[in-house]
C-alpha cells in the first residue's frame, strides 16, 4: 500500500504487532489445556512430537485469532479495550492479517497431521473454522448466545491434545471439552456484569444488553448448575483420581455458591459494594478451570509413579 504512513517511522508494523495478531494471551491458555489433554492421555508421545503437537495446536489458535481480528476490525475500532489492536490502530493492513491467518492455519493443520495424526489435524481445522467463521462471522453479531456456542472453540484444545496422543476421541476427551464448554458462559457473564463495556456501541449483542442484568444473573446460576455434572463425571473416568475428585467437589461447591449469590443479588446491592461478589466469582472461575486441569495432571503423575 502506498500509504503515507509507510514512510513514517512511528506507524509501521513491528514484529510484535504480528505476534499481537495471534492473541498471545489466548494462545497461552491453549498451550496449557492442549498440553494437559496430551499428558493425561494413556498413550505417550515422544517429547519432540508432543512439543510439536502443542506448538501447532497453539499456532492454529493464533491463526484463528488473526482471522478474527481481520473480520472484527470495525468492531475493534469502536471499543476502547480493542482500539489499540494492530489493525484498528493502522499498523497492520487488514489484508496482511487475513493472509497471515490463512497461511498459519494451513501450516498448523498440515504440520499437526505430519507430527501426529490426521484426526487431530482435522479437529484443529474444524476449530479454526468454528472460531473464525461460525463464531466471528455468524454468531457474534447476531445472537446474545454467541458466547455459549463460541465457547466450543476454546473447548477443543484439550480434545485435540488427547487425539494427538491417542488417535481417537473418547469419553474422557468429550468430558474435557464439556468442562470448558459449559464453564465459558458463567465465567464470561460474571465478567460482563461488572465490566462497563461498550459492546452496545459496537452493536454486538451481549446478554446484559439484550436481556438485562437480572436475566444474566439467572443465566450465571443455571449454566453453573449445568456445568457441575460434567466436571464431576470427568473424575469418574479413567483419567480421574483422588486428587481430581477432591479438587472438583471443592471447586464446584465454591462455584455453585458464588453463582447462587450472584443470582440472589440485585443491581442495587451490587452497585452498593462495587460488584464485589461478581468480581470474586469471576476470579474464582479462573482458578476453577486452571485447578481442574492441574488436578488431572496431578492424578496422571501419581498414576505414572504407581501411586494407585
Amino acid at each position, binding site marked *: 500500500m502506498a500509504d503515507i504512513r509507510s514512510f513514517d517511522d512511528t506507524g509501521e508494523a*513491528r*514484529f510484535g504487532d504480528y505476534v499481537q495478531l495471534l492473541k498471545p494471551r489466548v494462545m497461552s491458555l491453549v498451550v496449557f489445556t492442549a498440553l494437559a489433554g496430551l499428558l493425561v492421555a494413556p498413550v505417550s508421545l*515422544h517429547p519432540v512430537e508432543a512439543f*510439536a503437537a502443542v506448538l501447532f495446536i497453539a499456532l492454529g489458535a493464533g491463526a484463528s485469532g488473526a482471522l478474527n481480528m481481520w473480520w472484527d476490525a470495525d468492531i475493534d475500532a469502536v471499543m476502547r479495550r480493542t482500539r489499540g489492536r494492530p489493525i484498528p490502530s493502522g499498523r497492520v493492513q487488514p489484508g496482511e492479517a487475513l493472509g497471515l491467518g490463512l497461511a498459519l492455519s494451513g501450516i498448523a493443520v498440515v504440520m499437526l497431521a*505430519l507430527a501426529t495424526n490426521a484426526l487431530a489435524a482435522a479437529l484443529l481445522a474444524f476449530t479454526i473454522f468454528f472460531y473464525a467463521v461460525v463464531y466471528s462471522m455468524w454468531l457474534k453479531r447476531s445472537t446474545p448466545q454467541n458466547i455459549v456456542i463460541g465457547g466450543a472453540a476454546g473447548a477443543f484444545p484439550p480434545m485435540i491434545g488427547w487425539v494427538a496422543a491417542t488417535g481417537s476421541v473418547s469419553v474422557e476427551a468429550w468430558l474435557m471439552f464439556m468442562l470448558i464448554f459449559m464453564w465459558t458462559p458463567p465465567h464470561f457473564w460474571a465478567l460482563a456484569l461488572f465490566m462497563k463495556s461498550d459492546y452496545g456501541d459496537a452493536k454486538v449483542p451481549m446478554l446484559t444488553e439484550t436481556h438485562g442484568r437480572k436475566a444474566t444473573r439467572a443465566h450465571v446460576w443455571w449454566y453453573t448448575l449445568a456445568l457441575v455434572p460434567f466436571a464431576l463425571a470427568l473424575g469418574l473416568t479413567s483419567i480421574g483420581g483422588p486428587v481430581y475428585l477432591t479438587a472438583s467437589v471443592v471447586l464446584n461447591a465454591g462455584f455453585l455458591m458464588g453463582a447462587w449469590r450472584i443470582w440472589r443479588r440485585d443491581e442495587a446491592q451490587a452497585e452498593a459494594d462495587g460488584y464485589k461478589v461478581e468480581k470474586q466469582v469471576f476470579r474464582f472461575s479462573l482458578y476453577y478451570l486452571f485447578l481442574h486441569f492441574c488436578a488431572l495432571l496431578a492424578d496422571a503423575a501419581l498414576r505414572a509413579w504407581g501411586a494407585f
Partner: protein
Amino acid sequence: MAFRPDHELHRRRFGRNLGLGLVLAAFVVLVFALTVVKVTRGDPMQAFDHTTRPEMAPATDGTEAGQ
C-alpha cells in the same frame, strides 16, 4: 570501493526481519528433529506412488504363486 550505507528501510525493518529469520530457523530445526524421531522409530516413511513397490504390499506367508 566503500559499501554504501544501509538504506534507511533496512535499518527500520531489521527487527521484523530478524524475528522472521529466527522463526524460520526454529521451524527448520523442529522439522529436522521430528524427522529424526520418526525415522529412528521406524514409522512408515514410504507411500505408494506411480511405480510398483513390492515392499509396500502386505506381508504374505510366501506360498503364493510366483514364489
